């Protein structure tokens, strides 16, 4: 239904002021009070992407079986990337009920690419007969580059304890043919699917599965004809379109928020209308042409909404909703060792692990630049236990005979944190904590929101799931909490309110940012430049299997762990002042 309506001027009806001026007054009132609804904008939906960009998807990292007989069960293996896009805190329904306030989203595009060295060839991985051939080209083997993609979803255990760990619906699937990659003059790499328009359930867990059986040599042992292959720098990005949502305001108690509190500023939009029974004219101060020109002028100046690059509001705005969802997928511990996994058997090769039995702590860290404003509502960690077993035991390069297991040591401790950082080319240098979780083998379930694997045939682990999806709670704003997700026991996870992120224009003042965690003002003083994501593991008894850990206990399986920053972003762009904190 349209936001603005009018009375029809049908034949024989007396011309009244309301026929002409009532619609104008209605539009003027909406402009003056920033009440233009998203539905009045063509293509008003925003978009966000979930992108999995990994150093490589390698045959030898996934397919541990070194016997040809085991290789016949290809469905046991898949590269998988689970994720969830929980509703923003104020829209989160504790019973996962979808209603008119739920932010709905749908899959629109999927793009897949990897590095072929600009040749119609496949790339050899590190496990072939001649180890120095890692990165070599094989034109013949390119015919084995068939890639099966599948985006699946499942009900979360936190909302349905009977939902199991296997996907219950396939949202989208496709197979990329090797012919895409073997043309001399044209290769479809990257390949793009568009206009998919696949609805996604907003309260379910999603998982991208990638199967590329041709990365395995097929016949074993590998030979000059049968090669282990890799897809270096694999990137799969999925673009989702999303209904607009309202941005956060003072009611949401946002941390690190500028003084504007997200308030929408308005400006008067006055039109002059004739008095009752007055003559309707064209060019008088209340004439039709004069009044219409005011609306012309407003459209010529364009309609503002959203934040500036530095996170400021505009002097006046016109829309009720100017935000959409945002997801930033951050890889941790991927591509670790030739087998692509960080386990109790390979942990000795991690930096800072120390001597046997490798007590750590070992740390991986990612840096993400802050460019435009973003409000973090949830942090979700995907813990990956996928470490398939091999048919034959062996030392280097790590051939476990049992599938991956969860860390079990009573003294094991994992920790993950998200922080803002300021300090590049700056006088002031500081971290401001955004989210943090410290967990053990015994209490990780308290923050687990779901468990998933790629299928019932999976042999990625020795138990019924490959991944734990874990909420990493935002820090609380003093004693003030926000709205957390539910864990798999149905209990709400305590976390802080949403967290505003925007590079400010100056570090000289605190910019009046609101309290962040225990810090008032925030430690970064409103001048954050980077988001830093860090994960660590430690065990005084030893992270290695020579210590407290058992064999093939997995800290990050094939494909690595992932941390998702999930929140809201406003529309941006336009005539921002050209001020940047970096270069």
């Amino acid at each position, binding site marked *: 239904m349209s936001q603005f*309506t009018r009375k029809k*001027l049908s*034949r024989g009806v007396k*011309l009244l002021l309301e026929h002409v001026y009532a*619609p104008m007054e209605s539009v003027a009132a909406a402009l003056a009070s920033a009440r233009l609804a998203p539905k009045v*904008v063509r293509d008003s939906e925003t978009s966000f*992407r979930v992108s999995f960009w*990994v*150093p*490589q998807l*390698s045959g030898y990292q996934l397919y541990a079986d070194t016997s040809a007989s085991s290789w016949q069960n290809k469905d046991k293996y898949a590269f998988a990337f689970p994720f969830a896009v929980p509703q923003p805190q104020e829209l989160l329904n504790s019973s996962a009920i979808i209603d008119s306030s739920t932010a709905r989203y749908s899959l629109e595009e999927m793009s897949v690419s990897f*590095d072929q060295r*600009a*040749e*119609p060839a496949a790339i050899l*991985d590190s496990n072939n007969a001649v180890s*120095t051939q*890692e990165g*070599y*080209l*094989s034109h*013949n*083997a390119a015919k084995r580059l068939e890639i099966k993609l599948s985006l699946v979803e499942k009900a979360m255990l936190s909302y349905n304890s009977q939902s199991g760990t296997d996907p219950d619906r396939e949202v989208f699937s496709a197979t990329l043919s090797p012919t895409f990659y073997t043309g*001399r003059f044209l*290769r479809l790499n*990257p*390949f*793009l699917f568009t206009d998919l328009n696949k609805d996604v359930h907003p309260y379910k867990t999603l998982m991208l599965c990638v199967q590329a059986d041709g990365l395995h040599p097929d016949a074993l042992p590998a030979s000059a004809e049968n090669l282990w292959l890799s897809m270096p*720098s694999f990137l799969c990005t999925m*673009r989702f379109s999303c209904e607009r949502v309202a941005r956060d305001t003072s009611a949401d108690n946002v941390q690190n928020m500028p003084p504007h509190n997200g308030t929408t500023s308005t400006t008067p939009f006055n039109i002059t209308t004739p008095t009752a029974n007055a003559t309707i004219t*064209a*060019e008088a101060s209340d004439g039709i042409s004069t009044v*219409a020109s005011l*609306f*012309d002028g407003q459209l*010529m100046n364009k*309609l503002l909404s959203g934040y500036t690059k530095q996170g400021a509001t505009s002097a006046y705005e016109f829309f009720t909703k100017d935000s959409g969802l945002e997801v*930033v997928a951050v890889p941790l511990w*991927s*591509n*670790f060792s030739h*087998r692509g996994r960080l386990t109790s058997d*390979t942990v000795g*090769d*991690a*930096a*800072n692990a120390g001597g046997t039995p490798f007590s750590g702590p070992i740390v*991986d860290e*990612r840096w*993400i*630049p802050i*460019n435009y404003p973003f409000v973090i509502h949830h942090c979700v960690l995907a813990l990956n236990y996928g470490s398939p077993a091999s048919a034959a035991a062996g030392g280097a390069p790590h051939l476990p005979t049992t599938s991956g297991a969860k860390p079990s040591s009573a003294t094991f401790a994992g920790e993950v944190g998200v922080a803002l950082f300021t*300090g*590049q*080319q700056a006088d002031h*240098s500081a971290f401001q*904590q955004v989210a943090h979780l410290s967990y053990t083998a015994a209490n990780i379930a308290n923050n687990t929101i779901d468990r998933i694997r790629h299928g019932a045939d999976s042999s990625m682990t020795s138990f019924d799931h490959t991944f734990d999806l874990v909420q990493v709670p935002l820090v609380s704003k003093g004693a003030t909490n926000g709205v957390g997700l539910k864990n798999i026991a149905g209990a709400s996870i305590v976390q802080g309110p949403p967290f505003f992120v925007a590079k400010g224009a100056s570090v000289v003042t605190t910019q009046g940012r609101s309290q962040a965690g225990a810090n008032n003002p925030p430690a970064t003083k409103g001048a954050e*430049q980077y988001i830093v994501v860090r994960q660590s593991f430690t065990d005084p008894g030893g992270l290695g299997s020579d210590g407290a850990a058992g064999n093939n206990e997995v800290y990050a399986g094939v494909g690595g762990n992932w941390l998702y920053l999930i929140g809201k972003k406003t*529309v941006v762009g336009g005539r921002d002042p050209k001020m940047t904190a970096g*270069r």
Partner: protein
Amino acid sequence: MIRELVRRLQFTEDTTIDGNRLDGFMQAFVDRFNALQPRDLERNWTETTFVAGYQPAKPVSAGGVYGSPSLPWMNPRNLPYSFTFNQAVDESLFYPTNEYRSKGWGLPFLKTSISLGGGDNYYQWSSSLHVFKPTIITKIMFVMRTDNEFTNSFIYGPNGEEVPPGKNQGDPSDDFTVELAVDNPFTQEGRSQGNTEVLRTRFPADAWKMNAAISTDMKPEYPAVAGPNPTGVYVNLDVEVPIPQNSRVRLNLVIPQYSNGLFDTPYDTGWGSTNSFAKQYYSVAISMLEKS
């Protein structure tokens, strides 16, 4: 001048005001504000960020047991001769189709006649992305993080030995490259025809350091034994690169390895002569604005 954005009909002196004209005018007015066009909006973009990165395991040469793959790092050059393609198809006639995979990475003091696999004198990490609608790439970040175990000092001559010609001991590294390229729409597979949109090369690494005077670390804390302050190089480029619809965008990162210098002598640098990809660990990001 009147720019008639909400009307299709003129109402001025000497024009008529009748029911039909007014009815048409009001319908156009209401329709206009019920279906605003993207051009009416001042801000109509949303940002998206791609993040990559990893921490290499210890190579065997550095005390590791299982070692680290060099992938995704490979040589930036596909040599047309003097090596054996593995299972190549008639290499003499057709291949390689692209001898050079990217542009702007060669150093005057480091040979570019390198072999096929990883290693030798250069490593390249290349990623690509298909852009369907017009976008603007606004940020390119390439972080090479170091600590007490990832030991690249990003200077020439950290051990007081021979440095490349023109360099002094202690000079900051200026030998790695960041390139953002867009494939030529007519010869998409010809890298020599690609359009280099951003090229940062031969710039000093010490321009991208962090202020290390941090009073309180984040949680989890960086291990004290590893050197807790953020060291390394944090290349963080603000760019404004408009990308046309249906473009193929490539990010190429190239780092050196001093296996043999101009006169077959391995120069003294922070990268070392082997496994230079494992001397630091990585965070890579691209931010871009898309039409909402």
